[in-house]
Structures are given as C-alpha cells and as structure tokens.
C-alpha cells in the first residue's frame, strides 16, 4: 500500500508532463515546433540506427562521453592537487586565490574565441604518430578546444570544494596525529585526504555535471562533426525537432546516470560524515 503510493508520488509529475506534451503536440499539429511523443520514442528506442546522416544516437553519445572524460580527467588531475595545496598552505592560497578568482566568473562559453585562436581545429590526433587508422580518425574527433572548454567548466567546482574540504579539517585531528608521531606525509595521506574526501568527491560530482553541461557549447565549436551537442544543432538546421528532443533527453539521461554513480559512492563511503558531530 505504502509502496504503491510512493511509486505514484514519483510518477505523478512525469505523467502530467507527458500528458501535457501529448495534448500540446496534438493541438499544435506541427512537427517542427513540437513533435509527438511517439516520434521521439521511435528514435530513442532504436539508438543504434543512423540519424540524418550523422551516425546513430549511441555513436554520438559515446564520442561526447569520451570528450567530457578527457576534459574532466584533466580538470580532476589539476584541481585536486592544487586545491589540497591551497587548502593546506596559506602561502599557496594567497598565491593563487585572487588570481584564479578572476577567472572563475567567466562562463566557459566566453572562452570560445580565445580557445579557437589558440587551438584552432587541432585535436588529440596531433599527438598520435600515424596519420591513418581508426584510432587516428577517432582522435581527430577530440578537439583540444573542446577539451579546454570542458576542462574550464569542471575545474572550478572541483578546486573550490577541495580547498573548502581541506580548510574544513579540524585542527585537533591534525594535531592529534602529530602528537602520535605522524610526519607531514602521514598527515597528508591519513588525515587530510580522508577528512576532505567527502567534500572533494562532492566537488567532483558537481564538476562532472558542469562538464557535461559544457558539452553542447563545446560541440558547437567549428570543426565539430559529431557528438550529441552537434547532433542537436545540426538536427535543428534541418528542422528535425524530434531528433533535437531525443538528443536532449539522452543528455539528461547520461547526466543523471553519471550523477547516480557519484551519489552511490558518497552514500557508501562517507556515511560517517552525516552522523558526525
């Protein structure tokens, strides 16, 4: 009884949404403004078939995920060590904080002109020794400019939550480790990292969300010939709103899935944090 009620609660709003969509699609009667649910479902239910000559939904999502992954990993690798240093050493904090603070308010999209001037259409294939083969073709799809935009999007949330996490570590924990004979490296590894981990992982989660959101803007850059972002823009120019919506839904689903993975890690590993007084 309780369970069915719960399920009902979860599904009310989506159901209302779908009904309104259905009703509107019918009364507008124009596929370009609002396609029917069935049109979109057809595309979603066969994600492997090629769409408007741009590859399938799955292909485009895969390439998008790889792009996000590249920029994201770069952001994680830079932001976490830098954030830990800035959180721990006031000198490093002063050194970087105000400088980086200037860049933080700049939306990732505002970097586009500069990024294009710097990287043009060069891609990861630049670093690949051969000019042929399927890997080469694949790497050519991953433009440096895209990686940069995604990197910028993910970098700041991760940096800030890492700094916040490290600065929030209670000094008593660090000092008690010191009186137990821990050296600086011990303290870094066994106190600072685990104590700051919940905040860092939270930042990584937010960062991944932002990185994923930067994707569309990154895939609008010149030279892009694939990716969900590109699919959406291109489908718009050929008036295929159903493909646009299918692409948008895919972006949403992937975003939710990525977030769920992080949430699972958070609830599994960091349950101590909630109950901690």
């Amino acid at each position: 009884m309780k369970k069915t009620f719960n399920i009902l609660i979860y599904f009310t709003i989506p159901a209302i949404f779908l009904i309104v969509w259905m009703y509107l699609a019918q009364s507008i009667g124009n596929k370009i403004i609002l396609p029917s649910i069935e049109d979109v479902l057809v595309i979603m239910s066969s994600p492997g078939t090629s769409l408007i000559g741009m590859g399938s939904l799955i292909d485009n999502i895969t390439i998008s995920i790889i792009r996000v992954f590249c920029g994201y990993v770069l952001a994680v690798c830079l932001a976490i060590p830098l954030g830990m240093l800035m959180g721990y050493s006031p000198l490093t904090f002063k050194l970087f904080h105000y400088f980086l603070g200037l860049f933080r308010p700049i939306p990732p999209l505002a970097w586009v002109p500069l990024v294009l001037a710097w990287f043009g259409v060069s891609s990861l294939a630049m670093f690949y020794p051969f000019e042929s083969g399927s890997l080469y073709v694949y790497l050519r799809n991953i433009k440096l400019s895209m990686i940069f935009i995604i990197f910028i999007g993910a970098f700041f949330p991760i940096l800030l939550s890492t700094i916040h996490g490290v600065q929030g570590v209670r000094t008593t924990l660090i000092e008690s480790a010191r009186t137990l004979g821990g050296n600086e490296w011990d303290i870094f590894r066994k106190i600072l990292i685990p104590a700051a981990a919940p905040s860092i992982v939270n930042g990584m989660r937010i960062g991944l969300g932002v990185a994923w959101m930067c994707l569309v803007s990154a895939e609008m850059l010149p030279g892009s010939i694939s990716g969900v972002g590109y699919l959406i823009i291109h489908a718009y120019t050929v008036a295929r709103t159903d493909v646009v919506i299918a692409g948008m839904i895919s972006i949403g689903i992937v975003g939710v899935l990525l977030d769920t993975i992080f949430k699972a890690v958070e609830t599994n590993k960091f349950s101590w944090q909630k109950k901690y007084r």
Partner: protein
Amino acid sequence: MNNPILNLSDVRKTYLTEKKERINALDRIDLDIFENDFVCILGPSGCGKSTLLRLVAGLDRDYQGKIFYKGKLLTSSSHEIGMVFQEYSLLPWRNVIDNVVLGPEFLGKGKRERIEIGMQYLRLVGLDAYTKSYPYELSGGMQQRVAIARSLANDPQILLMDEPFGALDAHTRILLQKELLTIWNKNRKTILFVTHSVDEAVYLSDRIVVMSASPGKMLADIPVDMPRPRKRSDPAYGALVTKLLEMLESEAKT
C-alpha cells in the same frame, strides 16, 4: 634528586589577536616535572593551561624561553609525548580499533602487532567490545576513553591530558578518574593533567600546580601526599580542597 624528564624555564607566550592586540597567555613559567609523577595543572578558564600543554606537546613553537625534554631542547612533537585533547579528536571515518592503532601505524609497526597493541589498550579502558564501532556511535565518555587508549597505545613517556573529562557528567567523570588511576598504577607514565576542577586535581595528583589568569602565571606548587585511593570524606582531602579554592578565589578578586 634525579633529573626532571621535563623542564620549562622562563617560558612566555604572547598571542597576537586578529586585531593586533597582544595577549599574555603565559608569563615566566618555571616548572620541573619528574618521571612517573602525576601532576595536575589547576587554574581558571583562560589562564593558559591549554596553551602550556600545546607548547609541551611541540604543537606551537612560537614562544620565548626554553623547554627541555630529557635534557634536550624540545623542537617538535614526537610520539614520546602523547596528548589527549580537550575536545574530541578521534578520526570519524575510522572505527575504534583503527583509531587506537593510529600511533603504531605511524611508527611503521606491522598490522598484526598493531591490532594486538590496540586490543590490549582497548581492554585496559574497558572498550574491547566496541572494536568495530565508529566514534559517532559512542557516548562522549567512551570516545574520551578511546582517545586515552589511543595515546597509551603509542607508549609515550609523558602523557599530556587537557581536561579530558571536562565535558562529562559528574558520575562518569568520577568513574573515569578511578579508571585513569588504575591505568597509571599499571604502567606509571608521567602524566601532566590539566583541569579547572579543584576536586579532580586533589583526587588525582601527586602535585598540583596552581595557575592564575591574565597573564597566565604559576601561583603555587603544592605536593599532595595522601595515600591512594583517596577518600573525598577524608578531612585532609577537604582541607586541601578548601585551601585551593580560597587561593583561586582570592586571586580572582585582585
């Protein structure tokens, strides 16, 4: 007389506040602590007791004067000088046993040996049934006992205790005082115990160092030679308590 294990000579400490005001937290502290002694530092809130312990623990090196440990100038914290903090200091992401073995872990002891040592000290504080519990699952008194076990597991030469029972109710407090004396009888550490409770100082220590506030300085150094276990109903006990209270009170007035 043998050499003191700890010697403070003319130690002074001033804090600079955010508003650039100077606070004399400690002024001209001269103190000798001898091995196996149980010494209490007694004083009102804010007289610099925690500050003094932090200096001895090597956590704060910004002071004037000299502190010698076993005849050598103290330059940093070490595993030979353990500390139980005023506030809870267990690592919340580690369970009880993993908290207790932190010191041996830092010293590079093997896993089996670590667990053995840890269990030994958990048994000593009577918490061997809570090995796998997390700090947040324990009461305040239990957490403090784990913290004591953690310090002891490192086998320190000196154990500094900063009002370890300050946040506990009167009953638990008396229980833990007894327990601490039992432990101390077993392995005779040198203990430097900070408290603002006159009763606690008289009950526990061989010697009471009385401090006064602003600037924090030593007021008196009183030996306590009553046999243990001490009875609170003993007239000599009551007399000493009264004497100390009067001393603190007259100091508070001036």
